[in-house]
């Protein structure tokens, strides 16, 4: 393997990338646009969710001594999660829910003794919203319910302090205060860097085959490894540029939690080079662009699901937990999250970096072995 040959091919590849100005423009502005779209979509924790409430009043309001209904309504109104809409009937409340105007329908049923039953119907179409509304509604309903039932003055003879419900304090081990988008920003970086690097590399060899450039390269005594390494190096420059643009945009526009920017950049570049190496592997084993693109898009989707971006290991089938572990991007997301959210240092993320580097090497060796010198 001669360094001089690699340099020539590297420069040729860079020149080709540089000459395509529209592609460069799409790369730069596309990355910025994606950051803006994701940042403003995962903008804030869900709040002011519409809840349709109907009170099935037994008698005049205010008749009941403990006013549980009124207390619950006050708590619902004061909750930052909810925006209440009064329904005039049970049916209207449910109609609002089924018509996607409300996220839940709450029916408060009173009888002669006071509030007798609370019926909550939640929107089944969005699991995240369903879980948030469920938790917040039950928190309000049960904290209202327990004390009113069991306050010592109403149940004489109960020991003091015996009925105080246990308080809950839930914190995370984050190194700094985080917003909603911070939690998703780390895997999101991996997602874009992988997408851009993988999909720009999948046709790196196949398009050369189609337009006949490969014939000329194969006529000179360049080795397969030299061709592959020069292509990987040139496209790694793209990975560095895209990583820098994404990290900068997220930091400047959304001020995302990034405990160690230098280390995050290193992780991003390693992820990008992995994307390039995998793209070249696909390009080496396919013959025409359509095949490369189909395989590239499919692999990208598979990596997205397995990298722990949308679902953690705990939701996966045991076999898929093992498969996920043997994909580079799972380790990429792991490293990125721990660097950004927990402030891990190089020593702590070294195993993940070792996995990423190992995958790069493995993929490049495989691509070199599988690249055929035949033109067709």
């Amino acid at each position: 393997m001669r360094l001089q040959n690699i340099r020539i091919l590297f420069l040729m590849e860079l020149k080709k990338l540089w000459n395509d100005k529209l592609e460069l423009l799409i790369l730069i502005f596309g990355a910025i646009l994606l950051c803006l779209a994701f940042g403003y979509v995962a903008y804030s924790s869900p709040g002011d969710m519409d809840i349709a409430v109907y009170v099935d009043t037994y008698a005049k309001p205010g008749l009941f001594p403990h006013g549980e209904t009124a207390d619950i309504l006050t708590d619902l109104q004061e909750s930052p999660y909810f925006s209440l809409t009064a329904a005039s009937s049970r049916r209207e409340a449910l109609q609002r829910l089924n018509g996607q105007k409300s996220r839940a329908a709450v029916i408060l049923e009173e009888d002669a003794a006071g509030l007798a039953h609370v019926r909550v119907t939640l929107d089944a179409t969005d699991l995240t919203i369903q879980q948030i509304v469920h938790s917040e509604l039950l928190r309000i309903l049960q904290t209202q319910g327990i004390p009113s039932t069991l306050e010592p003055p109403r149940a004489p003879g109960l020991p003091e302090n015996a009925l105080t419900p246990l308080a809950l304090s839930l914190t995370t081990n984050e190194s700094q205060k985080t917003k909603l988008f911070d939690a998703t920003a780390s895997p999101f970086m991996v997602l874009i860097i992988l997408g851009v690097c993988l999909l720009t590399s999948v046709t790196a060899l196949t398009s050369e085959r189609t337009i006949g450039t490969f014939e000329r390269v194969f006529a000179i005594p360049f080795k397969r490894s030299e061709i592959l390494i020069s292509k990987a190096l040139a496209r790694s420059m793209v990975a560095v540029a895209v990583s820098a643009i994404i990290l900068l945009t997220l930091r400047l526009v959304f001020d995302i939690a990034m405990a160690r920017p230098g280390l995050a950049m290193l992780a991003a570049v390693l992820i990008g080079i992995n994307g390039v190496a995998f793209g070249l592997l696909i390009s080496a084993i396919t013959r025409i662009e359509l095949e490369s693109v189909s395989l590239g898009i499919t692999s990208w989707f598979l990596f997205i699901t397995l990298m722990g971006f949308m679902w953690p290991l705990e939701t996966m089938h045991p076999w898929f937990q093992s498969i996920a572990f043997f994909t580079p991007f799972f380790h990429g997301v792991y490293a990125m999250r721990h660097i950004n959210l927990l402030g891990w240092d190089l020593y702590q993320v070294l195993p993940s970096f070792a996995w990423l580097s190992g995958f790069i090497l493995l993929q490049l060796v495989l691509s070199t072995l599988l690249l055929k010198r035949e033109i067709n």
Partner: protein
Amino acid sequence: MNLHNTLTIARLTLKAIWNNKFAFYFIILTPILICVNFGYVAHKSPAAVETIILHDTGWDEEWMPITDFISGYRLSDGSKAFDVTVMPGTPGKARQLLEDKKARAVIYFSQTSGGTEKVHVLVDATEPLLISHYEREISFLLQEYSAAASRDLIARLPEPSPGYIPGYSVTAKTNASQDLKYFDFFASAVIVLIALALPLALSSLSITLDRSMDVLERVFVTPYRKSEIIVGKMAANGLLSLVITLMTILTLRVVFDIVLGNIALIFLLAALVAINGVIFGLFISAVTRKETQSLLAAMISLLIFMSFMTFLWPRETMHPAMQSLARFMPYIYGVEAIRSVNLVGAGFPEVWPHVFILILFITAQVLLTVLLFRRRIT
């Protein structure tokens, strides 16, 4: 627009795909592969999550029943919520245990002279879904525990207290038309995602590949109009996208037995989403010149659509400006409609506005693509 010319272009495009057997079978098998992957990754709601309960040896024994309660706590589907390991240690050790990846969360209690007062849960910050899991389940669990303890105390009273007011009962359910599994919540969006992604990616190359292989030069010397070329390509890619959509729905149904509403309606909605994807891909292909440009633009658009289609985040998390912008994207209507049909059991009377909007988007995009398609070769 001459129908005969349009059909010729459609046949030409289909033949080009059909002749490459590897690509053809790969395109057909891809939806199956992606569906299987999604299904086994979003396989079950988080359960038996590794949790450590720390107890200080100097404490009284009140922590024991709570620990037992947490260990035995079961989710609504009957599975254990937490896989609990109890170990001695002070609260100061909790952070280190998480750092060492011994568990996803560490629970410890603070006690006063009156007994256990507070339950502290320290959760791993790196996994948002598990933070929500702990937040939800631990608060339910504590409320249940407190209520059970209170009921126990009342039962031990010598005689019913005159001031005692029976508590109200709470029932919570969803408006789902049938029992849902964890993956059912995502399956509707997965249908839209695959129906959009593959047709969009493939059709985004349709015109650029023809340009680079000089097929377009030959087509341009014929008197075929731009509209005939675009509609012909849309018909061919549309046909392929219908096969992709069918494979997606079939795989999800057969392998994962997902909840499906009116299947004809689901297929109609998914097909409209796919055709929207095809025409958007053709639009990209018409305005770009090389394959890499088309592919990059397609990928960026796909990710943007994905972020807006309420697959990853609901409408309520969006910036108000983005909520308005989302209305101008067809895919959010596709996801909403398919979710309503599958999960709530909605029928055509409920989702016809969505169908209409999807058709409207197709028409608008066809017109735009025809306008922007240049007859020049380079």
